[in-house]
């Protein structure tokens, strides 16, 4: 789950006592003007959970309330990536001396938290890694430990941070603690700025909450989740199903992420285009009926492949779900089945008996028939 800058700062950084500048969240140009009147010279920042906001024209300086109102008017309703700007953060201006990069994230190879720091702040970590790989310092931390000031200072050795080093050390420790306390997948401060007055503050923040930990971060999860979804994807999410709408015309309903991706691959292999990703694997195998409704609600779908290969997911339960929903939905597009694995004899008999449809023995044949039917 992604969080916008204002939410990441107020929900994660500020409670962890990581310094941020004074800022006010605004929903209109009028509000931006009022905020600027309180704060003084300010930066008006589009609140969307994507990078490169500055390059897209979503971050502008304003020295007076009138200027703030003006630039806010320009930024609101702007499209950045897949998002429309609906919120602005009006933040105090500050004189920046140096920009750093700081982050804590899951290192999936080491299977440990990893602290990253670089003196090359302001650019993407991917860019720093490509252009100045030596400028990135790394510290892997055991999951049951917190990094000591000594650990951090050896990580920072030779970077010549001068008087800022104690503050940077403190912030990195707090960032790690916040990452742990808040089940971050990524907690990134870029830039972490050294100001002319000697303070080190977080000018921006990216926080990605581990989706699997939302259940125990409910207090902050309400402030996130601003991901771009189509109406159909939102309906899927509300039903607890992962749906990704695509621009093809062959609908996909399968169990398990691997099998679903493979069904999409085989559709493409035979010259077709998948209309969606939607899987009902794991515990979701009881939701076949809702899933059928979702796939058929996609106006682009001209034919449908139902591909079940049951391991944990019982094909008889899934087939039963499809058949019960079928009576209500009365699909008008041709539907092609392939059913194997746990419960397959019962499932095949159900589909044959209730729908009068003969499942294909090979999924490739079901897919090929669906691709032909969609053309």
């Amino acid at each position: 789950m992604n969080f916008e800058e204002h939410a990441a700062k107020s929900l994660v950084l500020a409670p962890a006592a990581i310094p941020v500048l004074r800022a006010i969240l605004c929903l209109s140009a009028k509000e931006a003007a009022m905020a600027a009147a309180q704060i003084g010279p300010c930066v008006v920042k589009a609140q969307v959970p994507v990078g490169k906001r500055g390059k897209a024209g979503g971050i502008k300086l304003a020295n007076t309330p009138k200027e703030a109102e003006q630039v806010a008017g320009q930024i609101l309703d702007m499209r950045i990536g897949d998002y429309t700007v609906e919120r602005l953060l009006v933040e105090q201006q500050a004189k920046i001396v140096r920009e750093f990069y700081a982050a804590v994230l899951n290192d999936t190879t080491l299977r440990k938290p990893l602290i990253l720091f670089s003196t090359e702040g302001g650019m993407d970590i991917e860019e720093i890694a490509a252009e100045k790989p030596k400028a990135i310092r790394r510290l892997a931390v055991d999951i049951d430990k917190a990094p000591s000031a000594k650990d951090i200072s050896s990580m920072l050795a030779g970077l010549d941070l001068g008087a800022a080093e104690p503050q940077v050390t403190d912030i990195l420790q707090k960032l790690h603690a916040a990452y742990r306390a808040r089940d971050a997948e990524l907690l990134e401060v870029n830039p972490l700025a050294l100001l002319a007055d000697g303070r080190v503050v977080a000018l921006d923040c990216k926080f990605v909450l581990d989706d699997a930990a939302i259940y125990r971060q409910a207090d902050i999860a309400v402030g996130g989740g601003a991901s771009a979804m189509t109406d159909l994807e939102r309906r899927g999410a509300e039903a607890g199903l992962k749906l990704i709408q695509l621009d093809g015309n062959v609908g996909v309903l399968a169990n398990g992420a691997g099998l679903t991706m493979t069904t999409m691959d085989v559709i493409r292999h035979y010259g077709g285009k998948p209309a969606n990703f939607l899987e009902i694997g794991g515990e979701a195998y009881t939701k076949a009926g809702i899933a059928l409704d979702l796939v058929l609600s996609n106006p682009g779908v001209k034919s449908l492949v139902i591909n079940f290969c049951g391991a944990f997911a019982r094909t008889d339960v899934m087939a039963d779900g499809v058949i019960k929903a079928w009576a209500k939905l009365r699909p008008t597009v041709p539907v092609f089945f392939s059913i194997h694995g746990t419960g397959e004899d019962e499932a095949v008999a159900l589909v044959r008996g209730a729908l009068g449809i003969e499942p294909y023995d090979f999924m490739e044949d079901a897919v090929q028939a669906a691709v032909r039917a969609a053309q």
Partner: protein
Amino acid sequence: MIVRKKDRVVVLGITGKQGTFWTEKMIGYSTNVVAGINPKRAGEMHVGVPIFASPADAVRAVGADVAVMFIPPPMAKEAAVSAAQAGIKLLIVLTEHIPAQDVMAIHAAAAKHGTRVVGPNTAGLVTPGECFVGIMPAFVPSVFKPGRVGVISRSGSLGTLVCLNLTRAGLGQSAFIGIGGDPMLGTTTRDALEALDADAGTDAIVIVGEIGGDMEEAAAEYAKGVRKPMVAFIAGAAAPPGKKMGHAGAIVTGNTGSYAGKRKALEAASVIAVDAPSQIAAAVAAGLKGGRTAMQAAVSRQ
């Protein structure tokens, strides 16, 4: 990580709906299930298996080599750590959606106690004709049969399809190793490849991968030195970049984890990569008869 009939298996969460269903299936397939765990029902029997309060109690009373978990995500860390502390050598974590930092804690505990973790989010292990541990349809004769092809898969559903295709082509399996769909796995594709390479019962190896992460690339490094014929299918060629495709592990970001990168790495290691699951069996059959040149020819004929 190839399970054997003699391996003593303890089931954590045996009394739940899925624990009960799959334990009965495992026992029916002659898996040696010796104990179940449920702190509230210690001393009782369930589906003919004695229940203990903790893995440590079960190990003391009946001994155990393998633990398998039917435990929901919020309790998974504690359960896995208790199994590692009890000295279980092989821990199969079926649970999907365990918080990442809990997964790290599981791996740390496993490393400390010398436990090999398979998963999280794996469908488990099958040794056809012998036993299985997990949630695979080992007992469906059209899917699995004993033989000499080893199969490694991140996905249970897709692994099932691949074994089905092999069985239909008359090619039985020596072992199915489900490694799991999570981004941080205890057993990687490479680990499984090493095990099958070393297994005297395995003559050919099928790698069923997915986009995301770098496990297939790492396995390709090892594959350079493997003499057994190897075939790979990587799911996700048609997946849009930047989207999580169900498995938390299956996401392409930048150049990392892409279909093209994985396929290239595997092909450079003389692994035959195929476009569709239906092509796997023919390639394996050709490889068993005539080596890699024959496999390549078999694939390009399709």
